[in-house]
């Protein structure tokens, strides 16, 4: 499915709910979060239909292989080894027809967060070691150390590589295939069914949130008092909770009347092909290499 061009275009918010130069209000932020989520879901649908390397691998093998790669990155100790794994991620991205910006959009937030978080670790007061550059303040020496940079960079590269693999899995896999893949990895049926249902319900509840937030936005002509905003928030979320419980009771009755026993039946699993075994062999090989590097 292709994302329509108008969906990605920046638009100015209608109505005077947000004045020029004012910061985003909580209504706009909520709307932004909902549309951002929908966009991400649609984007993954687009990539999962492309003809690429990961898309050609059977869902179980694809999920299993990516998990092996994530675990391999967790075991690696040397920055150089992690950078090699980053190259593997880049190669998989290219071969799977995933665009760099789409992957970066998912990798950058945790990478940036980690980047900021590790800055103090570069310095001698956290990681003592051989000085690269330093200065003295009130008799106290503050210096960037080789060991500190190594510790910080290792964490930064590791987090980026691991997040990249997870993002590649999400971008190239329809959620139904992903859950089917988990089923193949012996995750209990109860959880798989609940995951299936949860994903569907999230979309329903988000639509409810979007509708109520839009209606609020369209009726807002000036800033409202904090108490009023909090009351609105409480009312919406409590309504959401109430609606969730009502839907659950209706769904239960609908399921029971149709003879549903609590287990979702999926299309017959395909047998793994040579390509799938090759992929699993490759990822396992990297895992065993990771144990020593």
């Amino acid at each position, binding site marked *: 499915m292709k994302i329509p061009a108008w969906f990605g275009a920046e638009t100015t918010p209608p109505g005077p709910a947000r004045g020029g130069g004012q910061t985003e209000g909580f209504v706009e932020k909520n709307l932004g*979060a909902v549309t951002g989520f929908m966009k991400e879901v649609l984007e993954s649908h687009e990539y999962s239909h492309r003809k690429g390397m990961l898309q050609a691998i059977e869902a179980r093998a694809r999920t299993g292989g990516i998990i092996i790669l994530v675990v391999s990155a967790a075991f690696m100790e040397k920055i150089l080894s992690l950078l090699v794994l980053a190259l593997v991620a880049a190669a998989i991205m290219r071969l799977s027809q995933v665009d760099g910006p789409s992957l970066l959009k998912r990798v950058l937030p945790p990478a940036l967060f980690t980047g900021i978080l590790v800055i103090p670790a570069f310095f001698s007061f956290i990681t003592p070691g051989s000085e690269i550059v330093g200065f003295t303040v009130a008799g106290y020496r503050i210096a960037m150390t080789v060991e500190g940079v190594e510790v910080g960079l290792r964490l930064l590269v590791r987090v980026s590589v691991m997040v990249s693999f997870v993002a590649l899995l999400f971008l190239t896999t329809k959620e139904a295939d992903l859950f089917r893949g988990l089923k193949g990895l012996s995750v209990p049926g109860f959880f798989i069914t609940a995951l299936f249902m949860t994903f569907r319900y999230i979309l329903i509840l988000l639509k409810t949130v979007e509708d109520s937030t839009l209606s609020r936005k369209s009726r807002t002509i000036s800033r409202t008092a904090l108490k009023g905003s909090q009351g609105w928030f409480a*009312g919406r979320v409590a309504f959401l909770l109430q609606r969730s419980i009502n839907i659950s009771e209706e769904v239960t009755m609908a399921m029971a009347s149709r003879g549903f026993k609590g287990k979702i039946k999926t299309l017959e699993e395909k047998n793994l092909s040579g390509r799938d075994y090759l992929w699993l062999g490759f990822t396992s090989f990297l895992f065993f290499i990771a144990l020593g590097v």
Partner: protein
Amino acid sequence: MHIPDGYLGPRTCIALYAAMLPVWLVSSRRLDKALKIKRLPLIALAAAFTFVVMMFNIPIPGGSTGHMVGGAVVAIVVGPWAASVALSIALALQAMLFGDGGITALGANCFNMAFIMSFSGYLIYRLAASGEPTPKRRWAAMFLSGYVAVNIAALAAAVELGVQPALEQTLDGRPLYAPYPLAIAVPAMMVPHLLFLGPIEGLGTALIVSYVFRTNEELVVERGRLSTRPLWAALIIMIILTPLGLLAAGTPWGEWGVEEVKTLVGYVPEGMQRLAGAWKGVMPGYGMGGISNVLAYILSALLGSIAVVTVIYLLGRPWQRR
């Protein structure tokens, strides 16, 4: 509070997956017993609700907004076992589909937010709102439940991150994963939670649950009947986990003997010298003659827990009669 991939070492990840396994098993068995077909949509919708609530921005003073986890809300309304499963599912979806929280750290995130937060939130609410609470006390109980639960969960996450430098090191002793020790990780995590995120969680919990209470009282009262079973389960798990302390090398900070103090600061303060060894305890050093350290440690924990439960029971009797 969602710990991403790469921050926790493999040993911690495996240990926390292992810690969550019995919770998932017991929860799904309990839900199986309570007619799975009936509970399944409720669990899925509670998970979807948690997922959506984590995206919601709450207006807070100063024109800013904040996010909440929602663990205490779900636990109060659907009970702690169902909430544990629902939050685990929401966290799994966030990790798998949106990279929010890691796949390797999923066990840890579920342990902190699905298990600790649900159970502590639920128990705090039931205890603080026990009896016939006035609307004000009920509101305070809801706030307290959200505030304390999110802080306990944050403390657990901080400890998991803070022990990494000691647990996972390179050959030359440098941290392989999260680089900050407990002395930095705990305040860095707790100060924003105690001052900012905790009040948001407390306020959000109180606003939502009190609204639910006003519109559908039965939902909170009937589903939230107090059971002491989760408390007993948590107590037993804590007793089993007690010997973990034996893995730590060295003396805990501030628990030095006079010899260690002398080595650390060069002398022993006079008052400390005078009082040192005045009271050796019933079981000095958690030891018991002729029994292995681990067994003695477990027995000490068991005896300590029995003592605490007895004291609480005895103190609670007059209070219950009132």
